[in-house]
């Protein structure tokens, strides 16, 4: 406990989130997800496996027009979400052999076609990138998103009931028997993950299959994933694996490949669930530089404390002066 005193537990370096949340020295290794989107086939097995295991309700039949993404985003009833992004970009050595001589695509704007309809247009990169031989190339990015299980999780920091807690595995879980539906955590999440179930009021999100972890099982999504795009394991091991994979892709000429949420130095102290992306995070609908929204809480408290002290001091001075004044009278 002594190690905790005097430290900012809400931001900055944090090597042992579970230990610092009272799980004792012999708690299990911190685990997480490494989602390698470069091998994702967009099958959505993760979405279904998650819903089956956790009995998450079906949440609406809506053809969005956003490529094959009819899930739209993470929410109380979607704990895994596969994004689909159609781009006019080459994917490393994956190329398409469309004959540009026959038809020119460049004058067509899918956004314009979509105008006048209520459905959103498919996410699409604006810039056409013709390759040296004049061919227009195409790639289809797919990525399975999930709660990041931040090292510094603002949702949990702001939870007034203790419903959100840090598990012995370093993950962040909502206890549905505690949550009172206050919703403070919802705006606190820098990724927009945690969400209230309308008919219920309480919040729900990925638990990283907390119940399964207790028996040494891997989370349902990672187990189902046909191509091992979703990998589960000790976070340190996953980070090593991710670094190796990144190097491999860079060597293969996939220059845009990048890790997201992997660095313990980032605004949330690193994610427990991080990603290998093939483009900028914004392309996938991910915030480029997320910061734990409670990062400044200690300094805010200090400032508030100072302000309060000043106020109190002022008051005291006023009273003191007033007494002196009365005395003097």
């Amino acid at each position, binding site marked *: 406990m002594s190690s905790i005193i005097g430290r900012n537990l809400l931001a900055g370096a944090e090597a042992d989130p579970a230990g610092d949340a009272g*799980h004792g020295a012999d708690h299990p290794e911190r685990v997480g997800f490494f989602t390698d989107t470069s091998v994702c086939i*967009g099958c959505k097995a993760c979405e279904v496996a998650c819903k089956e295991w956790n009995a998450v309700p079906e949440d609406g039949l809506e053809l969005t027009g956003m490529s094959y993404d009819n899930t739209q985003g993470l929410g109380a009833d979607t704990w895994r979400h596969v994004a689909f992004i159609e781009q006019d970009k080459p994917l490393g050595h994956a*190329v398409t052999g*469309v004959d540009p001589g026959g038809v020119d695509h460049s004058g067509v*704007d899918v956004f314009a076609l979509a105008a006048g*309809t209520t459905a959103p247009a498919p996410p699409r990169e604006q810039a056409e990138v013709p390759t040296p031989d004049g061919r227009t190339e195409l790639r289809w990015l797919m990525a399975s998103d999930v709660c990041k299980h931040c090292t510094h999780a603002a949702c949990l920091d702001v939870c007034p009931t203790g419903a959100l807690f840090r598990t012995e595995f370093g993950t962040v879980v909502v206890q549905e028997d505690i949550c009172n539906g206050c919703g403070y955590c919802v705006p606190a999440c820098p990724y927009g993950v945690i969400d209230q179930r309308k008919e219920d009021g309480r919040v729900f999100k990925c638990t990283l299959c907390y119940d399964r972890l207790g028996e040494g099982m891997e989370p349902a999504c990672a187990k189902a994933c046909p191509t091992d795009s979703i990998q589960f394991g000790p976070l340190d091991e996953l980070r090593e694996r991710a670094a190796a994979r990144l190097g491999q892709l860079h060597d293969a000429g996939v220059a845009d490949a990048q890790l997201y949420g992997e660095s313990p130095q980032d605004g949330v102290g690193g994610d427990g669930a991080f990603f290998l992306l093939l483009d900028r995070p914004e392309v996938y609908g991910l915030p480029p530089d997320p910061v734990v929204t409670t990062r400044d809480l200690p300094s805010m408290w200090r400032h508030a404390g100072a302000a309060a002290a000043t106020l109190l001091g002022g008051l005291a001075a006023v009273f003191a002066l007033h007494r002196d004044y009365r005395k003097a009278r």
Partner: protein
Amino acid sequence: MGVRTWIQDWPVYRQLTGDDPLGRGAAAMSARTRALRPRTGTADRVVKSVCPYCAVGCAQNVYVKDEKVVQIEGDPDSPVSRGRLCPKGSATLQLTTGSARRHQVLYRRPHGTDWEPLDLETAMDMVADRVIRTRRETWQAEQDGVRVNRTLGLASLGGATLDNEENYLIKKLFTGLGVVQVENQARVCHSSTVAGLGTSFGRGGATTFLQDLQNADCIVIEGSNFAEAHPVGFQWVMEAKARGATVIHVDPRFTRTSALADLHVPIRAGSDIAFLGGIIHHVLENEADFRPYVLEYTNAAMIVGEDFRDTEDLDGVFSGLHEETGHYDVTSWQYEGTQVQAPSGESDKLYDERTHSGHSVSTSGQSESHGSGGAAVSGQPHRDPTLRDPRCVYQILKRHYARYTPEMVHEVCGIPPETFEKVCRALVDNSGPDRTSEFVYAVGWTQHTVGSQYIRAACILQLLLGNIGRPGGGIQALRGHASIQGSSDIPTLFNLLPGYLPMPHAHRHEDLDSFIEASKTDKGFWGNMRAYMVSLMKAYYGDAATAANDFCFDHLPRLTGSHSTYETVLAQLDGTCKGYFLMGENPAVGSANARMQRLGMAELEWLVVRDFSLIESATWWKDGPEIETGERRTEDIATEVFFFPAAAHTEKSGSFTNTNRWIQWHHTAVEPAGDARSDLWFMYHLGRRIKERLAASTDPVDRPVQDLAWDYPVHGPTAEPDAEAVLAEINGYGPGGEPLSAYTELRDDGSTSCGCWIYCGVYADGVNQAARRKPHTEQDWVAAEWAWAWPANRRILYNRASAAPDGTPWSERKAYVWWDEEAGKWTGHDVPDFVPDRPPTYEPPEDATGPDALSGVDPFIMQADGKGWLFAPAGLVDGPLPTHYEPQDSPVRNPLHADQQRSPVRQAFSREHNRFHPSGDEPGSDVYPYVVTTYRLTEHFTAGGMTRWSPYLAELQPEMFCEVSPELAVQRGLEHAGWATVITARGAIEARVLVTRRMAPLTAGGRTVHQIGLPYHWGPNGYTTGDAANELSAIALDPNVHIQEVKALSADIRPGRRPRGPELLDLVESYRQRAGIDENTGTEVRG
């Protein structure tokens, strides 16, 4: 709870006294959280099972608690799936335990307007009565003076989603009853595979297994959306990719498979033979073939008879075409110096001329009887090992493909020469002694009027490159139903008996011997056909089958042409077929010309539907599209409909045969609820009732039913037949009643019985070999101790070819099976697909027959000449070599053969509801100017019966849509996410529009071709609903196997939703009139 505990349980207390001062971890845990355990951990038992969706055959663990299934997930022990499941597999808990399943028998009386509940036993009695009545009323003793012993009044469809044991009982009972119209999805999906692979190599199954993809240096996926339709199998492509393999996807659309490929090659739908022919041309022109392999293991050196004329000589047709009938006389395609026996089982000496005319072959689907054993040839063919003789196969091949140049490929397929060159280079560079390439296809190739020839083209190419029978090589025919391989092997198909034995045709004085004589080969393992056939008759008729009565051969009903599922629909419309069983199949959505399927059913006297939910094929009389348009009124429809709820795979034991040819057992986890029963139960108890009712009959018509062996032990509360007893019968028994262990033990004297000779060994030593589950982590990558593969547990077929003629591996890198000189036998990583002790140097004596006639360098042991067939001198009715023809309905004029638009011998049934389009430059073809291709999505399954009712899957793909390019959207004013109506001469459907660059217009035949993508999963019932793509498709078939063309057709598309009611018919009619369509449109043989 003591005060102390109470206080200690107070989080604040824990926060203040423990190591969690901020109260965000240990201190915050509730009692419920601390007590959490996964339901897999608290289950009473874990039952081993297999996923019921596609044919990857992923192993499942079913967790049962209090006799309820509480969780289903992948079994990590499986060598093929390694514990993974796709979204459908992951949704099997919802499929099997969800609220969409029905558990009560329903009955719709004639002219009734609604369902009525019905007692299960009563319903079974009623169905038994109807079978007996209809059979009697429609019994045919003879046709045209020849005995046929059958009824065309009954038909059944379904089996690909069922267990092998269920298929076995379906075929056995119906055959016993004299029903010939027994069909299943295998007809509709992969029948052309059996013909294509069977005639080329000797067996109709995929030549390899999925895990072997990891050893490939180049993988060409064409005619398949591998990643979407078989996601868990696709992991092996990713493994290969990780090892440096080049992955190429050739497809009209940029799909989720293309997204992971190294190269996507957009192709015009319906032009793949031109593309593959172009690669064949490239290989031959550059002499890039694997010459030692080609010389020894293929028929390249064979001399073809001098009467043979190629399509290049005869303006697009081969020699032997009868223009009046639209059939080929196939005799001129034979090798020189050989007397070719009938290319199928129906020939007999009295009907020589008829057989040689090709007529009966062409109408009977006999090409599939090469599913295990190629067509028969006899005599000693002439060879030219220098390959210079102008009449040798190699030279014929060279001339046939001479015009398939890169420019022609560009013209026909819309593929630019640079892209095409990349594919050729990748394939050639990755083939040879050190490297292997693999082809993967699925129904994108099979479902064409020339589907069998698509497969043949790939076979030719892979033989030329020396890629068959070798690790990382071969041709993977991706199967799409859990047991569709099984429902071909143990067929619920009209033209086959188990193990690809042909169903006999009607002939005067035909007996068992003449039937065998007509069908067997002189050389190879098909020479022992009599042993397989007699053993089957013993399994069917038991003690009643004796040598004295020809083993009850006369009991078998006879064919008189094609009785495929599509002819059955015509027979329903004509009033011939009166009773119909649908077992796990939904033709009202999933079969070509869905409207004709429903109209046919509306003419039935009675219909039995067995399924999980009320699929469209069960409710069309009430709410089908024809009711909506006002063409039919429910009150007028006289069909009696029975709905029987089916048991799920978790509720019955049995085996599925996956795309690896693995027979995998799944065990009962729980008893089915309510009236739900297995199809094994249904068939067994239906047969039992029928036999009881006919037991005292003295009518000779009932004798085959009385003789049918139908004794299976039953158990449990529902009197479920013992599936393992059925498997044991399939496996076969020796003279002393002991289980057999190999088909080489079968005898032709009636001392052995065997329900399916190629499955002999699956119950060796009385042990259910299909239930073997030795984890892949405990054996090598071939995983020979997981389940059991037919034949003889071989995993890669024709693996003798993995060694050079001298018996040594072609290279160390690709060593698989080789000759061990010291031990005097073949050895290696797999069970050798060869005579185990036959040395590479062996030359058979002149008079040897059967397996004894195979030389040491004949790797294709089922083939009549032991060789892989580049040129098919027999076995197919539409040509010895694949030739590019346009699809039945195509906006493009055939660029290769200006005078021959379509295959001259395709089957095009022009009927009131099945009209065809003008094509190419014919007047009116511009009314249907676009190409439509149909396909599956990952999130749904076939006709939707197992996914559209599942909320977790429905929400992922919630509506029917069409995919169009931005260019087409502009041209036709289609709005992204808006609505479009797609129209053909058969119907019009509406779909939401996805405008995407993944659809690319191509330049082909001198014009821009726009393609429209349509998934075919939807129908009007279920949780997610939509129009069925098959409202648009026509019944136009491959003449070899009667598979329908649904992968390439022409259509128009326009913005907005389709009209409702009678106006829908008006719209379709107005298009027909504008295009000038009549009954002759598109039916020409020549031209």
